[in-house]
């Protein structure tokens, strides 16, 4: 095993920034008071929460922000909280590449609703023609993520919003922004987005905190009930240290970075040396490819073997088609894109952070090429 590690699994989680760790520690130590209390330090703790809320509202041009325990809860609240506030039933559209926290929420929609998947094209983007056909008057909600977590495909949100505006005005657009938040800045009102979920630990913040940003105020019902915190939308004593850490993460997230250049460099170096390389998702150079994620297959080497080989060289990446459960070994997203079996079995996701350096990419390239050379001879016979 190598002493030097290169962490390229930033789509899974990110390393908390030092400022985040400090902010969490200070909040735990000095600002532990319950923000609902009325003495001075508690009022200060409540004020901290509002400061973070303002910062996030500003970063997204949102009307309202509800703090949650993370991306999963934010997606659940955006979808189920909205639908339970809806007077009439109908259909909910969700793209087939959504994260399980969206898909699963769509599978438990309240009575009177029905959820339908929107097909995706081979580059891993929502099929806009299919969406057009599906946008009938009984549609109540559309869920499309900003950046796909497996392939890095940027979704055509402008076109989706436009289609809604033309064919089904007023329909709620929920966007899972977990991979996109701050990396691909977005303004909710301009983009026609009604709810937008994100998570702290994907932006160098702490785990256990996230938020749902809303483009329209007072338009949800809660999913958790209790003391009425967060304007009644999310009961439970506020996660003050998490929110303090989230604030530091949002404030300090590097707005200038070279992720895209490094990602393309990684791709080009590998492609030159390994002609058989397959990209799962959009062309890494295209405008539809996000800056920080690239999903590659190295046939005939299987993903698991490659992951372990890279791990031994200190490079941490992840399955590009993770077996999330025993039932389906490979990701529904890649399958829905029509990716070949060989590519499915070999899919590896490299995901960068704004802090990733050119040296680290160089180490990763060399480790990948060495591993590929060593492993390519060993294929099933």
């Amino acid at each position, binding site marked *: 095993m190598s002493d030097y590690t290169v962490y390229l699994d930033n789509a899974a989680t990110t390393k908390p920034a030092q400022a985040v760790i400090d902010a969490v520690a200070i909040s735990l130590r000095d600002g532990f008071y319950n923000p609902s209390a009325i003495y001075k330090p508690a009022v200060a703790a409540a004020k901290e929460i509002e400061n973070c809320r303002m910062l996030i509202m500003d970063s997204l041009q949102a009307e309202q922000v509800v703090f949650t325990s993370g991306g999963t809860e934010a997606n659940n609240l955006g979808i189920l909280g909205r639908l339970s506030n809806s007077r009439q039933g109908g259909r909910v559209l969700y793209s087939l590449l959504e994260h399980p926290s969206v898909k699963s929420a769509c599978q438990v929609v309240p009575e009177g609703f029905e959820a339908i998947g929107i097909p995706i094209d081979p580059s891993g983007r929502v099929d806009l023609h299919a969406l057009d056909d599906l946008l009938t008057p009984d549609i109540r909600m559309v869920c499309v993520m900003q950046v796909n977590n497996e392939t890095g495909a940027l979704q055509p949100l402008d076109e989706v919003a436009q289609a809604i505006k033309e064919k089904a005005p007023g329909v709620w657009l929920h966007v899972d922004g977990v991979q996109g938040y701050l990396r691909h800045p977005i303004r909710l009102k301009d983009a026609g987005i009604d709810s937008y979920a994100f998570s702290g630990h994907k932006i160098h913040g702490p785990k256990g905190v996230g938020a749902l940003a809303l483009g329209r105020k007072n338009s949800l019902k809660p999913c958790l009930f209790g003391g009425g915190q967060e304007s009644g939308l999310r009961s439970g004593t506020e996660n003050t240290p998490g929110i303090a850490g989230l604030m530091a993460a949002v404030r300090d997230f590097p707005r200038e970075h070279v992720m895209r250049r490094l990602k393309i460099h990684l791709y080009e170096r590998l492609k030159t040396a390994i002609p058989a390389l397959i990209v799962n998702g959009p062309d890494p150079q295209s405008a539809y490819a996000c800056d920080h994620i690239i999903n590659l297959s190295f046939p005939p080497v*299987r993903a*698991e*073997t*490659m*992951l*372990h*080989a890279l*791990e*031994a060289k200190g490079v941490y990446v992840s399955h590009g088609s993770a*077996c999330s459960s*025993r039932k389906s*070994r490979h990701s529904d997203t890649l399958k829905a894109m029509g990716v070949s079996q060989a590519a499915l079995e070999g899919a590896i996701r490299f995901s960068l952070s704004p802090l990733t350096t050119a040296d680290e990419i160089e180490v990763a390239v060399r480790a990948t090429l060495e*591993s590929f050379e060593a*492993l390519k*001879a*060993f*294929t*099933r*016979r």
Partner: protein
Amino acid sequence: MTELLLVKYAEIHLKGLNRPYFQKLLLKRIKETVRPFALNVEFFDSRIFIRGVQDIEAVIERVRKVFGVHAVCAAVEMNKADFGAICTAAAGMMTGLAGTFKVRARRADKRYFIDSPEINTRIGAVILEKNPALVVDVHQPEHVINVEIRDQALLYTREVPGVGGLPSGSSGKAMLMLSGGIDSPVAGYMIAKRGVVLNAVHFFSFPYTGELAREKVLSLARALSEYCGVIKTYIVSFTKLQEAIHVHCPPEYSTLVMRRLMVRITDFLAEREKATALITGESIGQVASQTMEALAVTDRMASRPVFRPLIGFDKIEIIRLAEKIGTYETSSLPYEDCCTVFTPRHPVTRPKLSKVLEAEAAIPELDAMVAVAVETAELLYIGPDKEEDALSGETA
């Protein structure tokens, strides 16, 4: 009146002059297994007594899994001189029950003032008087209260069956080839049940298999250790050999050559450990390498018996056993125990020994590679409590 656990042992009763040897081993194993609870365990009068128990359920669950234990009873211990108090306590233990019952007295102290039938009658009468919802049925009672008159009087109604078998260490030592699949832990359990100390051997092919697969094997060894105590576990790095087989041997023979090398390495480790047998989870015809012909070819690599306790079992029977002993769930985790890269599409089912030898001869420096695999095997001590792994980490 004190609460305690009473442990009854099984087959040891059938032993003759060497019975004390078995009793001592069983006592040692029970002491080991309850060590984290810091209890007083002692042998007396053909029974093992565990005193000072706080968490009764947790201790019962541990002790009932020790090979050699027939049953564990949660009992109360009283002064035998006060027979009135014994009757009252017995009636108290039967409170709230309804249906049929019997009293089963056992008078080990033959000087006691009344004999067993008399004890039954007197205690039974008090119980009936206090609890009219009960009636006596001495043949098929729904409830039984046991009263043993020994040094003290012992009363118990609850008897949790143990796993039986012979205490670990009473029958020597064997090397279990532990793959991470469903079968091998069950095979290990069955042989360990007969008092055999297990050493496990796992073949690890990094990077074709990873940390999770290794952890899986260790948790299987841990599950087995609940029955038989700490298991010395060898992790053999098999990657170089596996790659060499892939390069030099005909694909249809590769699995068989691999199995033979695994047996060969295990046999070397058995020599070092002074183990007298190998254990595998094979059953006839389950996969290509487990046909009778294939087994004959792999057997030749071992210089000691290869025990295959599952040889006549169907898969479904093995799964049921795995569920019973608590290894099935771990065995079914999805991490591949042997990467499919090295699984040929068409393995030979009726191998010819000459062809196998030819295939092996084609691998350059095979003996040296086998020697390195044996020498660099990592040794871990896996027990039911993780703290017991402290000795682990040395190279063999």
